[in-house]
């Protein structure tokens, strides 16, 4: 059965390793924080200027001066720090953040990503996404495998304006875990009960299937 958003977040949480500083995008990525193993040390960075984010505040304890990049009220944990935007992007651009998890509208088999603009329709802007994808060593995209119309979001070439070129390393969708390699999307894992045929049908870009593909262990 295909995963729901929570399932995608749970699977991605397993990619978060001890000692990682992690930047989480808006949407599914934000959910990842809830499922990271409790026995490892991880710190979440938000590009608006905080390191060491904690959970949402208790009702009545919200502070307008303490928010994340999604403009949500948050709390901080011991060891947290606040800083300005230039310093925040020094962390990102300087490769001090080990893992970036973000959503996408389209990913191409060469690692290109598009997630900030639909010409003539939706122009919200790239926010910090272009800095993140141009700099991060390790980028995981969290998204549904197909769009609402059923069309694949894993393409030969992106059709929308790009956010970054050749930068996506791994993709976790409701159907599969895939790695971007020079030849295309290499299938690593299937969602529980999802067949390789279903994944092939939902993938427009070159899908590489080597041997038996295991089911995800969530």
């Amino acid at each position, binding site marked *: 059965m295909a995963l729901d958003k929570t399932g995608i977040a749970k699977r991605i949480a397993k990619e978060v390793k001890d000692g990682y500083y992690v930047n989480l995008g808006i949407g599914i990525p934000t959910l990842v924080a809830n499922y990271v193993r409790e026995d490892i040390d991880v710190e979440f960075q938000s590009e608006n200027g905080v390191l060491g984010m904690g959970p949402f505040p208790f009702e009545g304890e919200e502070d307008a001066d303490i928010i*994340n990049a999604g*403009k949500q009220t948050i709390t901080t944990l011991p060891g947290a720090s606040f800083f*300005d935007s230039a310093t925040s992007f020094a962390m990102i*651009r300087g490769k001090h953040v080990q893992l970036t998890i973000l959503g996408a509208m389209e990913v191409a088999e060469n690692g290109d990503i598009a997630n900030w603009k639909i010409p003539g329709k939706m122009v919200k802007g790239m*926010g*910090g996404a272009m800095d993140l994808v141009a700099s991060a060593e390790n980028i995981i995209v969290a998204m549904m495998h197909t769009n609402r119309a059923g069309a694949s979001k894993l393409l030969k070439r992106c059709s929308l304006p790009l956010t970054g070129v050749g930068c996506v390393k791994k993709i976790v969708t409701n159907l599969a875990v895939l790695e971007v390699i020079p030849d295309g999307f290499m299938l690593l894992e299937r969602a529980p009960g999802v067949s390789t045929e279903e994944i092939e049908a939902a993938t427009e870009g070159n899908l590489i299937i080597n041997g038996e593909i295991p089911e995800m262990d969530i």
Partner: protein
Amino acid sequence: MIRKEVANVQKALQGVTNGQTLMLGGFGLSGIPENAIAELVQLGVSGLTCISNNAGVDDFGLGLLLQKKQIKKMISSYVGENDEFERQMLSGELDVELIPQGTLAERCRAAKAGFPAFYTPAGYGTEVAEGKETREFNGKMYVLEHAFKADFAFIKAWKGDAAGNLVFKGTARNFNPNMCGAAEITIAEVEELVPAGTLDPNQIHIPGIFVQRIFQGVNYEKRIEQRTVRQKQ
């Protein structure tokens, strides 16, 4: 000590006129110069170019200036959450330049620090890099970006003193420190103006040299854009 204190927002904004380029601190609605924005509405100055990470919401922040059609051009990284903005942009009334958030911050810092230009990886291979010089360093491609030029920077700080020294709180810091000193004239409004000498010199986020005018702000609403909470168990 060089004194920067002015009596009120009216005195602080002297010299602001039509057609200028303004920088405004804040991320979402957090850390925005509420008093300066209200006074800009009051003054009715128009044809403005505004450099600000976001464009506020329909009825708060820069949205107030958009409602009055005072803004000719926005330079931002993210402009969702604002219907009037979208309408003006799609109809062509409003010119919009979207640039990566880290590039926005650094173009402010470059202006403040006297760097004309710098190379950054953000936006390489995208439409953001169109028409810009690109260059390889150590096998990776970069885009040449330039320092901003602005007439005024409007800053919101938590505490400040008559010397113009500023301290920020939480994530309301964001772009505010980077914009201090990045325009011809930097105007800071603070929640609490304290006597000079009471701020610890080790703990000043922005030295007063980067601030030309400072005033005690009033009536801060500090609206929360996305109130997210958890329940006590």
